[in-house]
């Protein structure tokens, strides 16, 4: 008996030569314990060095190797080849412009990320104040309890692999949609006890193409390799944006830097 083989159907696209992407098949010997990424690396190293793909850590931390495997977004370094048949289709992440072969354009994703202000925002009048909330310790950093950390920790585990964008039906049809990971990150800072930028982010969340574009398909959470549950974040953010809007009608807002009620201290 010869060693087992599998056929890989891989998307190829050379922007200098091809009008549209095409596919190319490679039949290669495979090892029983290989991940899908091992097979793609084998093809690049031993069969066709012209294939372009992204990867780095090989342990589901860097988020670089996201691709469509048999039509579903997967981190290829975490996806066992033994779960697939003799013919495996590998495509670039859906819903992203294709730069080359299995490599997608990331700039649009980074722009969406920046829109949600993914950093701790402090009100100017509170900066460095001795009576700041939460209190500062003698090293000049804010004190945060384990319970306060637990409120947002799940949403901070995102590795920016973008599988959620490839799975989301709204991303596929609505170009302005901020998307699951960006909203989850904005919501993560809204829940952070050190942050005072909730009003600013909730204003962004009430814009068109943000949280209320989500139709709760839950696909983002289904494919998330780190169990971040972006669908929970997006729909909690809806709730927060509505509460923030309702409270703004009856409570005066001194500045855009002040926190609202939901999730705030």
């Amino acid at each position, binding site marked *: 008996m010869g060693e087992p083989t599998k056929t890989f159907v891989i*998307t190829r*696209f050379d*922007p200098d030569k*091809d009008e*549209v*992407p095409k596919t190319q098949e490679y039949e290669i010997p495979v090892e029983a314990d290989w991940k899908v990424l091992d097979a793609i690396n084998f093809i690049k190293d031993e069969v066709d060095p012209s294939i372009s793909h992204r990867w780095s850590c090989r342990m589901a931390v860097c988020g670089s190797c996201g691709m*469509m495997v*048999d*039509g*579903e*977004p997967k981190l290829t370094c975490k996806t066992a080849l033994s779960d697939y048949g003799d013919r495996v*289709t590998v*495509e670039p992440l*859906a*819903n*992203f*412009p*294709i*730069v*080359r072969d299995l490599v*997608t*354009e990331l*700039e*649009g*994703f980074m*722009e969406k990320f920046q829109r949600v202000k993914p950093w701790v925002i402090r009100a100017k009048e509170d900066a460095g104040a001795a009576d700041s909330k939460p209190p500062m310790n003698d090293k000049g950093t804010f004190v945060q309890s384990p319970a306060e950390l637990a*409120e947002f920790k799940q949403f901070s585990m995102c590795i920016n692999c973008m599988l959620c*964008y*490839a799975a989301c*039906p709204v*991303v*596929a*049809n*609505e*170009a302005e949609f901020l*998307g699951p990971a960006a909203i989850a990150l904005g919501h993560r800072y809204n*829940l952070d006890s050190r942050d005072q930028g909730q009003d600013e982010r909730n204003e962004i969340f009430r814009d068109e193409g943000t949280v209320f574009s989500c*139709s*709760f*398909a*839950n*696909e983002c959470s*289904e494919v998330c390799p780190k169990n971040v*549950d972006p*669908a*929970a974040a997006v*729909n*909690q953010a*809806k*709730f*927060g944006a509505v*509460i923030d809007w309702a409270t703004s009608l009856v409570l005066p807002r001194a500045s855009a830097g002040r926190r609202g*009620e*939901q*999730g*705030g201290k």
Partner: protein
Amino acid sequence: MAGPAHPDAMAPSKPGKTRTAPPQMPASWWSHPRIRTYLAFDATGIVYLLLGLVALRVVWALGAGPEVWDATIASLSNPLYILFHVIGLVSVLFVGVRFFGFFPKAQPPRIGPAKPPPQPVILAGLYAAWLGVTLLFAAILGGWIF
């Protein structure tokens, strides 16, 4: 890939130096069981629209005299109408169960100092409220109250 996604999906605001191929939707998008469930969930909106039109017809008959009212109510016993109402019932049950399944995780960790109850308690409350409202309407329509 199944077909094109929105041509500007995930595109940067300024095009890069390299030409890119337009974004595509995955080949399995329509056939995947999870996506079919999601599409069925959204498609129930059509059933609710039609149920609303039937309700409007009945309300109109109420103001059009006893003969029209009797004829309208009699027409609802047509097998096609009964089938339609069975489809409506299945749609409501399907949407209720799916929506209630997602509802607990959509709750914020707290509103001000108040934390939501544990997820099983939220779920139990939702189903109890659903049952209560259903029984209330059944009692009204059955003539047991009012």
